[in-house]
């Protein structure tokens, strides 16, 4: 406890000293308020100005929401959900929803972490729509989905399903979704035409269902393509390298909307003859996937560059093959480092699907536009655009925020135990 040491030699006889409690400072609510909101004159002014602004925004919003005319949104709920999909065949999208719920349940039980977060989000949505009186049958489907999710969760937690089988189930769920929604398989290029119910043409698919399809397919396909492009860009083989660089720079130099229009008008030119005319949906998906892959490649490249040379050398010195080194050492670290960028990219892709409305697909925004044009709301004072677009914005926000939240969870989980 010496405060002054003037002698040339000195020994601290108290060492090691016991750790002491930090000094008692202002704690509690008052302390927090003072420290965070009123710590200085400037801060106090800011706090007051913000409070006043918040007051006006919140009260204005509450007044508008409670007085707003929600009937158009409510009465078109089926249109917002699935577009023009025939009522008689609604069990098909319902089956897809049930399949996805069960898969989410199993994955949440088996893998936990991010899957559990996403599962909880889905469960909340299903519960919400099982309660809101959107229609007896639809509510029943929602309740069944919730049930399957819970059963899947318990099963996934109890039964040790191999991860690879579950992953395979997810991969297969994609074509299964398309077959279920279409009511069969129609591939003129392969001469396949099989149906178990009357075909539902893709131009009848729409609403949130179509938005989700565009986004999920775009994400699932652009991710592997993007990773391959990023790796290709670092390749020592000039042909591969320059192809990847060319592709990435070309695509990044073009707005998505031009790609979408090009997909509509030019895609058949690049396909072998006999492949016929891909549907609007396939064209839009191709454009979105190719677009997203180029940006993703650049994000992944950033992650690859952040991996120290020593990691490659350690993998080499252990005798790992180049492929194993990538698979076990380099990519897991590189991708972890760029999760925020990649998820940001996916959120962007999800919202960009709204551009598909401009090339004739009836996704969420296009449904909104159609609803606004409906004759029965023509006389409404002030129109109904505000309500419709606020509703669409809320839907986009819920899913975007869900992705953002899951990404933060994933980051903190994968960042565990690291010093860097």
């Amino acid at each position, binding site marked *: 406890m010496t405060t002054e040491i003037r002698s040339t030699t000195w020994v601290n006889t108290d060492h090691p000293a016991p750790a002491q409690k930090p000094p008692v400072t202002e704690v509690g609510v008052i302390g927090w308020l003072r420290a965070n909101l009123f710590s200085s004159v400037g801060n106090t002014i800011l706090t007051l100005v913000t409070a006043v602004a918040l007051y006006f925004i919140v009260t204005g919003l509450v007044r508008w929401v409670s007085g707003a005319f929600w009937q158009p949104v409510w009465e078109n709920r089926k249109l917002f959900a699935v577009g023009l999909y025939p009522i008689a065949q609604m069990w098909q999208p319902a089956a897809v929803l049930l399949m996805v719920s069960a898969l989410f349940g199993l994955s949440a039980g088996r893998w936990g972490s991010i899957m559990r977060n996403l599962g909880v989000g889905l469960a909340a949505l299903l519960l919400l729509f099982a309660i809101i009186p959107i229609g007896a049958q639809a509510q029943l489907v929602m309740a069944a989905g919730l049930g399957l999710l819970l059963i899947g969760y318990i099963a996934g937690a109890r039964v040790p399903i191999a991860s690879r089988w579950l992953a395979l189930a997810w991969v297969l769920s994609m074509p299964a979704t398309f077959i279920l929604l279409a009511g069969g398989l129609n591939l003129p290029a392969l001469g396949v035409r099989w149906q178990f119910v009357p075909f539902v043409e893709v131009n009848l698919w729409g609403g949130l269902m179509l938005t989700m399809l565009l986004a999920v397919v775009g994400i699932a396909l652009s991710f592997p393509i993007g990773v391959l492009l990023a790796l290709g860009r670092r390749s020592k083989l000039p042909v591969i390298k320059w192809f990847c660089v060319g592709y990435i720079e070309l695509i990044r130099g073009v707005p998505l909307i031009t790609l979408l229009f090009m997909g509509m008008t030019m895609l058949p030119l690049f396909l072998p003859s006999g492949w016929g005319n891909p549907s609007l949906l396939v064209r839009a998906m191709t454009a979105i996937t190719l677009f997203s892959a180029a940006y993703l490649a650049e994000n992944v490249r950033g992650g690859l560059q952040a991996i*120290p040379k*020593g*990691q490659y*050398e*350690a993998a*080499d*010195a*252990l*005798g*790992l*093959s180049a492929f*194993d080194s990538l698979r*076990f*050492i380099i990519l*897991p*670290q590189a991708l*972890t480092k760029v999760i925020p960028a990649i998820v940001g990219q996916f959120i962007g892709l999800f919202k960009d699907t709204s551009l598909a409305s401009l090339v004739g697909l009836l996704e969420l925004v296009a449904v909104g536009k159609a609803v606004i044009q409906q004759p029965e709301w023509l006389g409404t004072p002030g129109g109904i655009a505000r309500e419709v677009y606020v509703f669409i914005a809320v839907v986009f926000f819920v899913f975007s925020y869900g992705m953002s939240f899951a990404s933060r969870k994933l980051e903190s989980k*994968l960042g*565990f*135990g*690291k*010093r*860097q």
Partner: protein
Amino acid sequence: MAGHAEDTDIIIVRNVNKWYGDFHALKNVSLTVKRKEVVVIIGPSGSGKSTFIRTINRLEEHQSGEIIVDGIPLTHDVRNIEAIRMETGMVFQQFNLFPHLTVLQNITLAPIHVRKMKKKDAEERAMQLLERVGIPEQAHKYPGQLSGGQQQRVAIARALAMQPKIMLFDEPTSALDPEMIREVLEVMEELAESGMTMVVVTHEMGFAKGVADRIVFMDGGEIVEIGTPEHFFTDPQHDRTKLFLQQILK
């Protein structure tokens, strides 16, 4: 392997040259290492000692000369390179553990995927190695949660898990706090006693004196002098060696 049983030379390096651009980093380096021998390479920084040790397992490519490890010539053939890497373990100055894997996973990864060992067997062996380097209780932690000395001991265990015939150490204690150098050197001493062939680049003169069979002194990309510890420290021949020893033993 049987063909080389009588062959006592496990590493043969003949007239190796390496350039970085115009810079001549290794000049006609020749050295032979016998089985179970411990060779310590010392020299000022920039003398080419790290570059030299890294050419042995092809982390650096040499442009001329010949390197033969355990009878396998080091050529551009990927199969030869991978075979040599399976025979040689390497420990780096910066540890280079895989930060996203636990200690146990760090050690078992290569045995499982390169040696095709069963996961259970690999883990059993990893635990034995962790016992050997004195930190079995850290098996399920991540590298970032360990001290530098512990990380380097894990790195040694990871290299040993591949059951190499040769261990290469590239300045294994240079990035450690003084208090942790000892624990790593003790593991290396034990390894030398067990009969492992070792090539060690280090600045630890105590280790060189106590453990090395031969000491190699490098300067300017060349081997200047080779000798037993007694001769090397008490009766150096070359003026450059004398000057170096004067500087560090002052």
